């Protein structure tokens, strides 16, 4: 389709804006890695709109750019691992029949946190960090479901063409 590059740019800009909005929400759960993941909304919305390779490009770019602008460079390793594992799971589930965007997004949220936990285990070089595992599972599930619900509403109201 026409204007492919322009649409890609709009989606990337939206993801970055959501990353910024997220930094404005002062929620502290006292647990590392727990946040809403608003930028992930763009990825879930894009799941059926753009090709898989473009999804990966969009995901990696938004993590890198938002990481350099809004966070310290070190946090990028966590976000990138989480984002790639999460996207891979979502792409796979999207190909299996019987899952709605809500379930796909929930799985994405859970695996995003699992990816981050794996990096954290290597960084602090101890397994005791797995104490956070159940909390991260539940928080990923909840935020994933929220993102899934919002995605359904966005898709109803906003006509984003398939590319």
């Amino acid at each position, binding site marked *: 389709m026409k204007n492919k590059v322009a649409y890609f740019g709009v989606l990337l800009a939206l993801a970055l804006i959501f990353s910024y909005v997220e930094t404005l929400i002062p929620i*502290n759960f*006292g*647990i*590392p890695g727990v946040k809403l993941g608003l930028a992930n909304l763009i990825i879930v919305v894009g799941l059926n709109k753009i090709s898989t390779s473009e999804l990966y490009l969009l995901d990696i770019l938004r993590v890198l750019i938002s990481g350099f602008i809004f966070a*310290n460079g*070190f946090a990028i390793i966590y976000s990138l691992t989480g984002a790639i594992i999460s996207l891979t799971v979502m792409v796979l589930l999207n190909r*299996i029949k*019987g*899952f*709605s965007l*809500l*379930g796909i997004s*929930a*799985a994405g949220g*859970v695996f995003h946190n699992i990816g981050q936990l794996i990096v*954290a285990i290597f*960084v*602090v*070089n*101890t397994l*005791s*960090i797995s*104490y*956070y*595992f*159940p*909390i991260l*599972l*539940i928080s990923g*599930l909840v935020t994933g*479901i929220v993102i899934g619900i919002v995605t359904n509403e966005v898709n109803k109201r906003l006509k984003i063409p398939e590319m």
Partner: protein
Amino acid sequence: MKKKDIFLILIVLIIAGAFLLFNYMRPNLREGVVVVKIHGKVVKTYDLAKDGTYKIKDGENVIQIKDKKVKMIEATCPDKICVHHKAISKDGESIICLPHKLVVEIDSKKKSEFDFVV
């Protein structure tokens, strides 16, 4: 929401619940040692029964042992997640400061070693 969605959510909840129960069942012996690890290496151990405030790595992190509970009271890291963490006292519980690669852990099994020293 479809059948498989609910199935997936239930599986995650069951796994999380099982781990939560496991963490909850940890014995709260309120004894043992406080182990401080940096990048997986033990750098210091303190007696959980002894109250005190200790600086780790020239004050990058400061822990406080009080009433057989450990709390991180100061840290120079940007996010301060470790400072907001609740005080720990159960065997295997930990406070983690990711930016400093630091883990404060409770080990209730190592109590006897201290008795020998005393």
